[in-house]
């Protein structure tokens, strides 16, 4: 199975970063760091739901839970 963190990180870099800010790591703050804004978080959530065939309730999709790739992995695993 693909490493979940790698998959998420690759998606984040591909979709939300460009050549000038692609040095994102598992611990880079995505939401509080302004890389993914609250509106774009909806598309990131949708990606995770499609990819892992899960449903993340809106109440759990907080900016804090989406703030790093590491935290996102924890969140996704709760709903697998």
């Amino acid at each position: 199975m693909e490493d979940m963190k790698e998959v998420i990180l690759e998606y984040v870099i591909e979709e939300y970063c460009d050549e000038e800010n692609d040095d994102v790591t598992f611990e880079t703050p995505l939401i509080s760091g302004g890389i993914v804004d609250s509106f774009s978080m909806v598309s990131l959530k949708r990606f995770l739901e499609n990819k892992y065939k899960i449903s993340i309730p809106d109440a759990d999709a907080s900016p804090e839970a989406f703030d790093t790739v590491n935290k996102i992995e924890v969140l996704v695993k709760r709903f697998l």
Partner: protein
Amino acid sequence: MSNIGSYEKRLEDFDWSIAEKELDYKSGDDINIGWYCSDRICEMGKADKPALIWEGLGGVEKQYTFNDVRLRSNTIASFLKDLGVKTEDRVCLFMDKIPELYIGFVGILKLGAVAQPLFSAFGDDSLHVRLDNAQTTAIITQRKHVSKVRKILDQMPYVKHIILVDYDGSKPLREREIAFNMDEAEQVENFKSFPTKAESPSVLHYTSGTTGQPKGVKHVHYSLISQYLTTKWVLDLQDNDIYWCTADPGWVTGTSYGIIGPWSLGITQCVLDTGFSAESWYKFIEKRKVTMWYSAPTAIRSLMKAGDEIIKQYDLSSLRHLASVGEPLNAEAVIWSEKVFGKAFLDTYWQTETGSMMLTNYPGMKIKPGSMGKPFPGITATILDTKTFEPINETGKPGLIGFKPDWPAMMRTYWRNEETFQKKFENGWYLPGDRAYIDQDGYYWFIGRDDDVINTGGHLISPFEVESALLEHEAVAESAVVAKPDEVNMEVVKAFVTLKPGFVADDDLELKIMNFIRKKLSPLAMPQEIEYRDSLPKTRSGKIMRRVLHAQEWGEEVGDISTLEDD
């Protein structure tokens, strides 16, 4: 004692000359907002007072006094002048909320050029259409955003200079690019602000309507008069305040009340340039000892969602006054803020075109939670009949909000679009496009928009613009875009699409289309939901009936569908 004192008393003897006198301005004098926000404050003896306390990611901090703002804005103005930027040329600010954005704005105005701030999350299409309309001469930006400019540069021969404020030399500069480091550049002690007059153009902000491309709202230097006074009386800023306006200067609140208002009053303001989280915001208020906080309903509702427990972890006792703008502030949010902060957020109503506050709640005035408040002194407001455009004298009867267009910050036109500008008036009233009613005590109550424009998190989105962009996706045959109710953002974008043959309506395609719009237009314009349809409701003449879909989303009556085509 609040700055406004008694609202009723102010109504009795109001004249805009109150602000003119305080600003030592007389009709016919030079009036340059850039000078008022920097040199004048220094001349008043506040050169060493902090003007900007900025915090970025990881707690990185920068501080600038009013003298620093004066020197750096001089330096920016001088740099632009040396590049050949002329009076009334448009200079775009395309940056995050970094100090260069705030001080660059002041510098552009000092030069006599027109500041065109654009939201840094705009995609290349959104950026292009706005730069093209303005025929922008120069763009001041950062490395992280320059790729969007590069992508469309070939289509913009009028853009002569792209100024990178954080160039680090790691990669070569490209065509038309030049580096400028605001803090390291040799500071220019003397720069004579251009002698702009009351009607000289100052700021060009872009806003969206139901149809057509985004409109460039032209403001002039005289707007300072109402921005100064509304800041003083409504935001109640006082000399020892630490002010935090959470708005991005890519939008009008971020310039009218995030730069012009506070700095023309010589007030210290702080800026947090990180993404949103309840924890980081509360921490910032505690650390900076924020006293006056001007924010938006979407943020307030997000804070409500984060719960009350987290608030107890922070000392927020410095807060003395709160206000809100962007979309109607619901009663629950007002009541909640009173409960958890001990103060109610005062709702303020205005828009890009009005340039300054129009209907608001005031310190010391009784608040009716959920109400827009009352007209600012000097503003003639009414509710108009939707057909005759005559004022409605009946209490509680809904109609269109109308304003007599005679306050200083009123837009002067839509840039290169006078025809659309003229359509905003009926019977001598300016129509902001919102419906409301007035209660027996003279308070205004918001009902809704009078058009299809979507207000998401306080930002207006044109359904037409999103529909047009959707049609550029290879899978989309037809599109219709409407507002969908949302607990936090009030409204979000929802799209209905039909697909071209050969495409499968599944979740992966939905995500692809969402991301397509996000990158092309902006995250705000990205549909939060896409519904696939076999066909869209149309009139017999083939026009898509957006209102049928809107009614469905809001659980409303569809109304007259006699023109709907048969299936």
